[in-house]
């Protein structure tokens, strides 16, 4: 056994010279904090997406050709449906473990985007995007966009009534692009809605173009992370010049694999027990039918809500029309995501802070940034709520008009209020000098340049009170 390992290591090293790199990698140090696992959750949801998604492609037919459904789902028997819809019904009702795979895939997509968003919030509120990590911030924002695109294209593939309506709205949004909207729309959709090519094109985007970019960017994201080493929260012995944490092998590897297994377990449980996107209840897409209430997947909710909140203002200039859809669905996301993308540079313009940072901020210590972040989240949250205005109207027994009016006013007032309250809370916390309990061992190992380790005592930094370690 040992002999075999030795021989194969020798074989690889003699050809690729990887032994010393591999040894270094095993000993690489990662800081330990629960919030650093959020990005990993996204990564592991992506792993589940790739495996379940591959299974789905073996059964899915990307075609709108009309066929007659004659599967086991009685209410639709004899119905004229598209080949795409038919194949998803077959996958759900006739392929063994097919429904589990499909539902797990859908749940994993929801968790994937959610984990990305929460991870992005962590990076934003702790200032992890500051120099030298601006490039990785850009890569991360790119990943968010790709994830949204991947989600929307996948959601539209079953060619059911609900997603067909979503596609129709997307068509209206691309039509609303000034100057080139009509052409862009016709090139993208292959003609006037509902052009027959759109489903096969969505399929190519969903299983090839976007995943290829997504995986490439994930690689870049992780490579930059390894190159720059992870950020860490301030604490005893932690400086801008070092990384304090656990080694890749064994601690981090065990923890990460354990997390991968937990993420998979939760997604499998959701996929098995929690019904999602029951397209047989929505029915096949028919361009003159519509269902009510109609809500998209959660991450598109803000955009649907923005469309519901939008003002009924269209504009005609020299005979050309700017649609009322332009303001909420193109201009607003353009500005919001533009600010998000450029945030590291926007913030630097005001703070004039060009220094390298490897120690994270605590949100309370940067009340303006934290306030802007929560205000921005409030904007998205109000739009998300408006995306369900019809449901709230029924639940609360108030006219849907009232819900919309209230949320329109909230959109103006709530972000300002959120900013002020956040700022006040941050200032208060900062003044109170309350610090989260730190659990530090009294002794640390320090890795020196030869790859060996030394023990280092943990003398409290100057000016700080000595904290008793919580654990011996």
């Amino acid at each position, binding site marked *: 056994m040992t002999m075999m390992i030795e021989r194969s290591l020798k074989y690889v090293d003699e050809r690729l010279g990887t032994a010393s790199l591999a040894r270094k990698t095993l000993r690489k*140090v990662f800081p330990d904090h629960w919030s650093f696992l959020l990005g990993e959750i996204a990564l592991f949801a992506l792993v589940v997406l790739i495996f379940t998604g591959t299974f789905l492609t073996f059964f899915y037919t990307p075609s709108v050709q009309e066929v007659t459904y004659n599967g086991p789902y009685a209410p639709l028997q004899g119905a004229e449906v598209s080949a795409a819809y038919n194949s998803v019904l077959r996958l759900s009702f006739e392929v*063994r473990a097919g*429904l*589990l795979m499909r539902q797990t895939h859908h749940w994993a997509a929801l968790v994937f985007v959610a984990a990305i968003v929460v991870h992005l919030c962590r990076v934003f509120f702790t200032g992890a995007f500051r120099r030298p990590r601006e490039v990785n911030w850009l890569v991360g924002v790119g990943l968010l966009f790709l994830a949204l695109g991947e989600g929307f294209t996948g959601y539209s593939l079953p060619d059911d009534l609900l997603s067909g309506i979503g596609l*129709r*709205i997307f068509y209206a949004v691309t*039509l609303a692009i000034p100057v080139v*909207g*009509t052409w862009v729309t*016709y*090139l993208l*959709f292959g003609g*006037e*809605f509902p052009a027959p090519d759109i489903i096969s094109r969505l399929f190519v985007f969903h299983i090839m173009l976007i995943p290829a970019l997504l995986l490439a960017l994930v690689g870049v994201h992780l490579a930059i992370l390894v*190159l*720059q080493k992870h950020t860490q929260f301030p604490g005893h012995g932690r400086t801008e010049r*070092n*990384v*304090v944490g656990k080694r890749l092998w*064994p*601690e981090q590897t*065990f*923890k990460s694999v*354990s*997390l991968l*297994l*937990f993420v*998979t*377990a*939760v997604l499998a*449980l959701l*996929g*098995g027990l929690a019904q999602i996107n029951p397209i047989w209840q929505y029915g096949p897409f028919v361009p*003159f039918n*519509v269902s009510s209430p109609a809500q998209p997947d959660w991450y598109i909710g803000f955009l*649907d809500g923005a*469309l519901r909140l939008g003002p*009924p*203002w*269209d504009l*005609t200039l020299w005979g050309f*029309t*700017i*649609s*009322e*859809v332009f303001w909420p669905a193109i201009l607003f996301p353009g500005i919001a995501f533009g600010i998000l993308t450029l945030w590291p540079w926007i913030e630097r313009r005001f703070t004039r802070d060009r220094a*390298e940072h490897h120690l994270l901020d605590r949100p309370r210590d940067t009340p303006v940034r934290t306030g802007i972040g929560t205000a921005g989240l409030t904007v998205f949250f109000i739009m998300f709520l408006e995306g369900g205005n*019809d449901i709230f109207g029924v639940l609360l027994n108030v006219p*849907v*008009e009232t819900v919309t009016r209230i949320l329109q006013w909230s959109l103006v007032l709530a972000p300002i209020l959120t900013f002020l309250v956040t700022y006040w809370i941050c200032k208060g916390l900062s003044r109170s000098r309350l610090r989260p309990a730190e659990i*530090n061992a*009294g002794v*640390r*190992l*320090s*890795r020196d340049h030869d790859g060996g*380790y*030394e*023990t*280092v005592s943990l003398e409290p930094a100057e000016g700080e009170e000595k904290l008793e370690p919580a654990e011996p």
Partner: protein
Amino acid sequence: MTDSDQGSERVDVDRQSGTELTGSQRTAERRAAIALAVAIVAGVGLFVVYFSGGQTQVEGILFAIAFGGLGVALGIWANHLLDAREVVEERHELTSGPAGRQAFEDALVQEVGPVIGRRSLLLKLLAGAGGALGLALLLPVLSLGPAPGNSLKVTPWRRGSGVVDEEGEPVQLNQVPENGFLTVFPEGHEGAADAQALLIHVRPGSLKLPPDRMAGVPEGTHVAYSKICTHAGCPVGLYRAESQSLICPCHQSQFDVSDGAKPFFGPAARPLPQLPLGVDDENILVAQGDFDAPVGPAFWDRGR
């Protein structure tokens, strides 16, 4: 606890094997073993379920138990059975430093400069050829869709088109009861997305339309509007007869049927275009022409 003398003492980082397990470690090991055993049982259970026909819920639960059991075992292993010490690693300089950059710059000047510096004509032509080829390579993009032309401004409705329902059956005057409505199409284009229209039988005398538009409303009660919302294109599928208003279920735009389907609430800015109707000798509804405006959501050259 802290002992400054240890600061320079090297320690062996390899996990020592064969050391005595403490009591808590033994407990942890037992728990991890149980978790792994549960995972094995769930894995075997999956075989049974699959070969006995499959059952989505049970499969989900068993998968969750199998993955979860493995996860628990590894988690316990990580937290209790590893010699998990905090380790300090020094960061290295990210930059190559001024000297390194200077060296690279010199290399650029020495290696790249001589190669391209004296070939400025060729370089310009190379850029030109690259540009021309690059643009030519974009041409296939134009094959992705037809030119929009006039297609967004017209529908299959023509003067004399028979009004039919989605099955293709002709629609007669008074076939739709008062306060009722029906989705209609031009004969021969049943189901056409851009031609869908709502025929609404309104209460007599309730329509407030100018005379030229009333001319397209047989009996003053059979009015037809495009069913495609002028906001984002959803079918406007909800009708409130008592207020004679249409509601789009997607974004809740509301249109006043009595007043030319003008929007009075929600995000839509333009009225639903009207389809002028008439009646033939057999009391069957026919169109007098296409809609009075482009149907559906706005686009750049809509008004041109």
